[in-house]
Structures are given as C-alpha cells and as structure tokens.
C-alpha cells in the first residue's frame, strides 16, 4: 500500500475537524478523497445516515467482516451464542449491553483473541483480504479454521483492536514510542527516520497533544487517559480496514472523548468498518450508524438505532435505555459537618525521561467533610489520580501537608499512618492491577471483610454474597480470578472491596468508568445510601461531568495540577 506522508495525514485531520465544526454535524461529509488507505477508493461513497445495509450487489456494502452463529464458551460456560455480525466499511456499529454480557469477549474473538480457555465456534467467520484492487476482487479469509497464520494476516493490518484493559495493555517495560513503532512495524516502506514523526502523528491523531513528550515514557508514567489514547494510536497504526474499539473512551474526559469519537467517525468516513463497544450511550449515539445490544448471550437490535441524534449536549435523562436519574447537583448537606480530610497546599512533581518535570499536582487545597461528596473532574492527565494517591498516602508530597481528622496524615511514616488506615478507602483507577493475582474474588472480599484475618471465602460466605449483591454482581463470580472478569465486573469488585472495609473517607478514582448506566446508577445509589447511613466522605474522581454532578455536593475541577472550583 502507499505510505502516507505525515503532513498529509495531519492535514487531513485538521480539515476534518474544521469541517465538522463548521457543519456542526458529521453527516453528509463530502467526498474528500482522503481515504485512510489508498486501496479503499470507494470509501467516499459511504456516508453516514439512513442508508443502512446497501443492496447485496453494491460492492461498497460488502462487509469487511462477516460472522454468523458465533458462540463462545469458557470451560463449558457459554458467554455468547448465535451472534451474527457484519462490519461494513464506512459504518460504525456499536454494541452496548450490561456489564459482563460478553461484549469484550466478542470483540476480542473477532481477532481470534477471545481469551485463555475460550472455545469459539461460528458458522461463518470471514474477513476480506486486503488487496490493491477493488474490493470485489478481494478474497475472503475463512477464519473458522483459526490457523495462527491467518490470524496474523488479519490482526493489526486488517483489523485493529483497542482493548478494554487500556491501563495494562501497554508493555510496562517499553516506551510508548517503541510500542507504536512495533505497531507500525509491519507497514512497508516507512523509512526509519520517519518513524518517530509518524508515531508522534499517530499519538496526536489519537488526541494527545504534544505527542513527542510521550514517546519516551512508559505506561506507568502516564495517566489513565493518556494510556488509553496511546493504545488507540497503536490500533490504528497500520491503517486497518476494521477498527474494533472496546470502551475506548472509558477513562477520558468529555473533550478528549469527543476527540476520540470524532476520530472513529473520521475513520469510518475514510472507509473503515468500525465496531464500537461502549456502555456510554451518549457516545454511542454520537457516532454509531447502528446500535445493537448484547444481553443474555445474544445480539439484538437495540430499539430503533441510532437512538440519539449525535449531540454532545444530550442529557443522561434523555437516554432511552437506562432508568432516568435526577441530574441536578445534590443539595449541600444541611448542617456543617466536621472536616475529615484536609489537604493543605500539596504539590507533587514527576521527572520524566529527558529531565522534564511534570507538575502533576500544584498547591492543592481541599477540605472534605463527613457526609460530603466532592466531585473531581478535569482533563485527562490533569493530576486527578495523583491527588487521589497523595490523599491516600501512596505518594509522598513534595510540599504541603494532609490531615485526617485533624491529625497529621502525610507526610508521615506508614507506621504512624497505619492506625488510621481503616478510615480511608480507595477504588483505584486500574482495578485489575490492584488485585492479588493469586486470589479469587471470594478471597479478595473475604480478606477485606475480615480486615485481613482470613482469606477463606467459606468463612465469610454470607458477607461475600452480600457484598456481591450490593454491587449487582453474580454470586458465582466469587470463585473466579480478576483477570478473567469483565471490565465492569472488576470495577465493581474493587468497589465492593473498598466498601467492605467500611471506610469513612473513600477516594473513588474513575470508579464507574467501565459500568453501564444501570450498573452506574446502582453503584451511585449504594454510595449515597452509605453516605446517609455512615456519613461517608467521598472524593469522586471522574471524567464524566454528568455522573459527577449527580453524586457530588460540590465539584472541583483540576487543570494542569491546579484545583479550581467548577462552574
């Protein structure tokens, strides 16, 4: 295929943006002649709108990926069955559905990576070969045989996958630059010199400004959203015909999210077939040509999709699927309660490769009262997680102090802190990494419930079941290990663990980012209930202003490490 010059690439993106801004809608985008890949000349013919499935004879409609009767089971447990799926060039298909329904497993199965111990069967499983000629001349690869060689031809080049586990989907030993380089690796004809520039362009395309600053950093030196965008960049590095994005916006703030959604649209406009898995109905509504719901193992039409007009301002309440919730900010607690957590002028900086210093948190001040919820929003990378970690005593402040119940909390030695530890809980942004890989969900909860006295699920069966019920998780998850849970399931286990310890202060770092609206509401209700009963003080970090607004008494915004009160 023809290599794209970087400037052209960037140019195109700008043009796209400008255009979108001007028209206010992405619809009826003129044939700009800028297909993402040169061999998709007919890409411009695809438009978004009501032209659903095109007639069979129309080559533009020939699906890039076609699956019939897909069935996946894990050790005899059937996850999905009878799923039929066509990914058509130029179109965005969205899959929604409750957490744990099998969305991610399905998405992964499409590139033959369903997971350890999975058995995948299908009546038909075909992907169109990539070729220089027109699409009709292309051969369909039958993927049912599942030979590794076939899959390798498919992955990356024909189909790019953005994993849901974005926080742990980058090799922690390698820099982002090298991961990107590897992703581009199979692209022929790119001279070594240009690679860096190309990698930077990819990152920028995925929505990271100042991309050069990220190339030399490793995943654990990035914020959650930054990792997510780096991952997206790796998935589109080879200009695939199909992009499968599993919750690509879960850790992103609104603006960044919109950038990523726009990228997906733009890819579709360029003739790429996009599969978007998301619980964010608003996002789905903004980009999807078609929405389908995966639940009870089967894939159904989700109402009359697309449900929503692509509007950024759609309020949650207007969404069709979840039960509406009040979106007004909660009234401040009536009587002033005591301050449990005081953050006094705390700062924290990181030095990244190249000697640059990043002021992650800058002179933050915050008082958190019992029974109060403070929402913390802000752009990705603005320092929210770092502030949370400072409050938890996981990071040592460069300057400033933090007090708990009026007593010194940080800086202090861990030994001094320990007696007060029980009062502070944490739902980490990266839930998966925070579980002891050797423990089952039951053991994790038993440990939390018994305050470390026991890890035997048997002795705490009732407690574990209650905890799972609370977060609306099936009880039989107790015997599983976190690595084999869905994203939303993990997140809820993390919440259940934090709550089991009955903290008085809880730092929730993107605690509901992987949850579908129904589950989110359940969790929010649970938190509010606990707040009423026990006077729990919440620091609620979230990129989603709507959710934040729902649960918070007041909201703070973080920008470049500085705390401001939100409008």
């Amino acid at each position, binding site marked *: 295929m023809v290599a794209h010059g970087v400037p052209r690439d960037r140019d195109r993106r700008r043009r796209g943006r400008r255009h979108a801004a001007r028209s206010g809608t992405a619809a009826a985008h003129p044939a700009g002649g800028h297909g993402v890949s040169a061999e998709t000349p007919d890409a411009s013919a695809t438009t978004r709108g009501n032209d659903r499935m095109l007639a069979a004879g129309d080559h533009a409609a020939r699906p890039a990926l076609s699956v019939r009767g897909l069935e996946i089971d*894990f*050790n005899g447990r059937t996850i999905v069955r009878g799923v039929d799926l066509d990914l058509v060039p130029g179109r965005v298909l969205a899959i929604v559905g409750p957490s744990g329904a099998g969305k991610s497993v399905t998405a992964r199965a499409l590139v*033959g*990576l*369903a*997971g*350890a*111990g*999975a*058995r*995948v*069967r*299908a009546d038909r*499983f075909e992907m169109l070969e990539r070729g220089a000629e027109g699409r009709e001349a292309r051969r369909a690869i039958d*993927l*049912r*045989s*599942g030979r*590794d060689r076939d899959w390798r031809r498919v992955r990356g080049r024909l189909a790019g996958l953005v994993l849901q586990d974005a926080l742990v989907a980058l090799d922690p030993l390698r820099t982002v630059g090298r991961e990107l380089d590897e992703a581009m690796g199979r692209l022929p004809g790119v001279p070594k010199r240009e690679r860096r520039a190309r990698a930077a362009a990819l990152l920028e395309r995925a929505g990271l400004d100042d991309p050069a600053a990220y190339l030399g950093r490793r995943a654990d030196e990035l914020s959650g959203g930054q990792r997510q965008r780096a991952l997206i960049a790796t998935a589109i590095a080879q200009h695939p015909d199909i992009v499968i994005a599993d919750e690509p916006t879960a850790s992103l703030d609104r603006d960044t999210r919109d950038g990523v959604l726009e990228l997906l649209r733009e890819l579709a406009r360029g003739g790429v077939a996009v599969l978007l898995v998301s619980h964010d109905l608003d996002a789905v509504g903004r980009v999807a040509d078609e929405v389908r719901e995966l639940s009870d193992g089967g894939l159904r039409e989700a109402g009359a999709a697309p449900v929503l007009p692509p509007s950024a301002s759609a309020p949650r309440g207007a969404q069709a699927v979840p039960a509406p919730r009040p979106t007004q900010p909660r009234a401040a607690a009536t009587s002033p309660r005591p301050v449990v957590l005081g953050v006094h002028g705390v700062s924290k900086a990181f030095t990244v490769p190249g000697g640059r210093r990043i002021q992650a948190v800058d002179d933050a001040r915050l008082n958190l009262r019992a029974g109060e919820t403070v929402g913390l929003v802000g752009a990705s990378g603005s320092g929210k997680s770092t502030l949370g970690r400072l409050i*938890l*005593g*996981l990071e040592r402040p460069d300057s400033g102090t933090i007090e708990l119940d009026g007593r010194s909390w940080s800086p202090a030695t*861990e030994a001094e802190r*320990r007696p007060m*530890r*029980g009062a*502070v*809980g*944490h739902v*980490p942004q*990266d839930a998966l*990494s*925070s*579980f*002891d*890989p*050797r423990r*089952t*969900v039951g053991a994790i909860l038993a*440990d*939390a419930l018994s*305050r*470390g006295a026991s*890890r035997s699920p048997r002795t705490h069966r009732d407690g574990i079941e209650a905890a799972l019920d609370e977060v609306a998780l099936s009880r039989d998850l107790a*015997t*599983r*290990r976190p690595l*084999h849970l869905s994203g939303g399931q993990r997140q809820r286990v993390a919440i259940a*663990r934090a709550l089991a*310890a009955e903290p008085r202060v809880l730092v929730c770092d993107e605690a509901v980012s992987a949850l579908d609206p129904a589950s989110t509401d359940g969790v929010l209700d649970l938190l509010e209930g606990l707040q009423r009963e026990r006077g729990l003080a919440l620091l609620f970090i979230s990129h989603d202003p709507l959710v934040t607004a729902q649960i918070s008494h007041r909201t703070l915004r973080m920008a470049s490490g500085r705390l401001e009160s939100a409008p």
Partner: protein
Amino acid sequence: MTAQPEVAVRRRRPDASLWISAAVLFGIVLAALVPSLLAPGDPLAIDPAEAMRPPGPRHPLGTDESGRDLLTRIVHGTRASLVIGVAATAIGLGIGIVFGAAAALGPRWLDWGVGRVLEVGFAFPGILLALLVIALWGPGVVTSTIAVGLSTAPGYARVVRGAMLGVRASAYVEADVVLGRSRRHRLVHTILPNTLAPLFALATLGLGQAIVWASALAFLGLGEPPPSPEWGALLSAGRTYLLTGSWWLTVFPGTAIVVAAVAATLLGRALQRRTRQAGTA
C-alpha cells in the same frame, strides 16, 4: 475454531502430568520409607561371580563391579538421596528466603548489607564451600547436605529478593496498604505467597540439583562414604565404566535422579496450575 494456541498450551493441558508425577513421587517416597518392600534384597550383598552383569532377567538393571544388584541398590539409595535433596533444598531455601526478604523488605542499609553478604557467598564457588564444610566436619550425608544447602542459599536469596521487590512495588500490595494491613500481614499474606509460588518450581528443581551436587562431591571422592547406594555416589562410581561398555551402571542411577527431579518439578507445576485455574474452572 478454537482458542489461542499460546494460552491453550497451559490452560488446556490435561492434568495427567499431575497424577503421573504424584504417582512417581509416591513410589519414591515409598522406596525411601520401606525400601525392602520394593526391593527385598540386600543392597550391600556382594557376589563377585555375578559382577558386571548387564540388565537381564535375574538382575533387571544389571549388577555392579561387586555383583550387587543395581535395582536393589537404587531403591535402597532413595532415602539418602531424598534426604539430601529435600533437606539441602530446605536449608538453602530457608536461608535464601530470610536473606532475600530482609534485603527486599528491610531498610536500605540492610539490603546493602545483605547484598554484600550474598556476594561473599557467591564468591565461594559452591563446590569449594562444600569442600570447606567437608574438610571441617568430614564427609557424610549430614555434611553434604549442609554443604549443598549452604552453597545454594545465596542463589535462592537473590531470586527471592528480586521477586519480592517486584511484588512489593505492585499495585495490589499498595491496595493492602490502603486497607491498613500491617507490614507483617502484607509480608505473610500477599508478598510471600506471590513470591514463593514461582519459587516453588525453583525449589523442586533444587531438589534434583541438590542430589546432583552431592554426586559432584562423590565425583571428587567426597560424597557419601562407600558402600552407600546413594544415587549420586552410584552415578559417579558407575561413570568410570561407561567408556568400557557398562552403561547401565551410570544410566540407571542417572535416570533415577532425573525421574525424581522431573516428577517433583512437574508436580510443582501442576499444583501451581491447579491453584491458578481454580477460579476459571
């Protein structure tokens, strides 16, 4: 269409290896406890007229230069070998864990100190350490065991330290901290299990290696005193006759060592796999 081969490799391997290795180890332990059950003869009974018989109906594994039945000797040698293997590994691993944990979890100066101590330990090549120990206390099972144990300890310590540093810095230990678990609690319930599990495989390896170590000492003439049928001693004694055609004298004791070690390794692996898999089954 099936799942990924790369993961299928471990996930879907049947547990035959578990049962086979468990059965073999059971046999080995039985041989160690009641050797006469498996081989009723006297391992020391000589019969010059029957010397150097190749394997045959009367002597399934052949006889040695003194006409002793090799099968009987191997069976009766199990105990000494097993004691050396298990005890030496326990010594090495025990010291290794204490030192490794001290280095990884203790204050920085302790880590520094332990690091230097380990280097001193390494500076004495294992065999030399063994020689010194033997020179001090004379050859025999006990000294061989201590010697082998001591000489493997620094290696274990270093592995333990490395693994612990990694685990200690992990997000799940951080989660323990947030939950207010004490240092000891974190060590016992999170750090150790996550460090020791991989070490388990190492330890099963160590078992075989300890026996081999003992045989290296036997090669230098400083192992179990003759006529003990300890495997290492058999192996090194039999080696002399390999070039002149009496292969059975070295092949069978070698096989015994390999079978024991491999069975232990496989069992360790299989057990680990089981605990890991418990959640997915």
